[in-house]
């Protein structure tokens, strides 16, 4: 298996690691049994993602995709974050080994889960906007 230089660079120096104590939205996906969990924290101001932090339990690709996903949405309007696909994360990392593609899906879902939490806190039903975020306990390797 080979990781791109970009993946290794993000693994070695992950961006935006940590927590946001007064986050406007927090989302967590994955589970311990499968070996990957991602937790995303969003700070949203006037529809703009002003800050984002993540914590990840998982392999190198899980860390790198979390890191890249946070970079891609930081400072962007919520609408842009809603449109972020796992494919965009993979491309930004110069590709991922096929067996690791599910990590990028997890990163996309972690952001969606955090956005859903944000809408819920606003008293807005997230489903029509964000779509369904799969259950955390889905089978390994989605």
């Amino acid at each position, binding site marked *: 298996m080979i990781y791109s230089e970009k993946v290794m660079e993000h693994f*070695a120096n992950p961006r935006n690691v940590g927590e946001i104590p007064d986050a406007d939205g927090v989302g967590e996906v994955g589970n*311990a049994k*499968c070996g990957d969990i991602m*937790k995303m924290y969003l700070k949203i101001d006037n529809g703009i993602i002003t800050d984002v932090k993540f914590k990840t339990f*998982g392999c190198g690709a899980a860390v790198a995709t979390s890191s890249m996903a946070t970079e891609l949405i930081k400072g962007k309007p919520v609408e842009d974050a809603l449109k972020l696909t796992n494919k965009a994360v993979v491309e930004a990392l110069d590709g991922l080994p096929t067996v690791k593609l599910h990590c990028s899906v997890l990163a996309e879902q972690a952001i969606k889960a955090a956005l859903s939490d944000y809408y819920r806190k606003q008293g807005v039903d997230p489903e029509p906007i964000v779509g369904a975020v799969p259950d955390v306990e889905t089978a*390994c390797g989605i």
Partner: protein
Amino acid sequence: MEKRFVYADNSATTQISKPVLDAMMPWLTEGYGNASSIYSIGMDSARAILKARETVAKALGAKTSEIYFTSGGSESDNWAIKCAADVSAKKGKKHIITTVFEHHAVLHTCQYLEKEGFEVTYIPVDEMGLVHPEDIKKAIRPDTCLVSVMFANNEIGTIQPIEEIGKICREKKVWFHTDAVQAVGNVPIDVVKMNIDLLSLSGHKIHAPKGIGALYMRTGINLPNLIHGGAQERSKRAGTENVASIVGLAKAIEMATADIPGKQQRLSKMRDRIIAELLKIPESRLNGDPVRRMCGNVNISFRGIEGESLLLSLDLEGICASSGSACTSGSLDPSHVLLAIGLPHSTAHGSLRITLGDGNTEEDADYIIEKVPKIVEKLRAMSPLWERILRDEDIDAE
């Protein structure tokens, strides 16, 4: 400490040693004759192979005629198991006994045979990773044709009671195969005393090249071929002999078995120091038996982190090691060995295997002891699972 390169994955493979390479060189250069040819450079090759066979036999307490060179551990395992099954089926014996934590070369071969109509009993191991000989004894039936139990486990390093199992099999008149790929050079082996009928070994774990190994087949056991073709290996294993690698294997096994107690003493001291230091890390555990263990094997799980990121982080510090996490096992489940000794998935994902070898020094151990705790701490600091462990949540609830 200054950055260093520490190769601590000697159970995965080893570097070809200088004496092995030197022994091989003539056979990679001017000594290229085909051992089946009648002219002198051919006969030179044939003589070199014969001498190598004597050396390998001596290292195992076997007769020269009982050693067959193969392409490695996987081929030897396949040959022993498939072909023992094949001849036995003709006599109506279609039951095989093995264990749940064999190497895939054995496990997948047995699973293949199940599809072919054989019945396989997979003996469990205890939480220390040991096979209980009485479990084997109880599982033997009149139609059992083969018992296959690995000598030493490649992940957790446990050394099995091979002599006792061999005795049981001999009494019950069932063939006994052992995958000794990890054991050779780490544990004294005597195929006669241990009642071993078939034994697999591989070169690249003992400083010989990859792609060379051997099968010991006791006199009187006449397995059919796995590889058909020319008359090499007394018509038992076709293919023009890899003379250089055969010579290399012989040199390697001679050196590896020259002073096993010395190696055990040197490496187990280093091993135990690393284990003691790494177990000071909170929420860590040693996998496998602390004593009945290969002298270079350390296998520790750190809760709350995942093995692959641990390995990548170690690699950034110059340390090569391995893990039994799903991400490194090439499947969605963590190592079958760690699950077999009862580890929850989440703990198995966080395992680290360090396997020391001849090239490692006390300075390497110091370096490992300095780096691993820092990396574990860094990965835990960014792990949402670690938060939950600290809150005492049951993270393994289904």
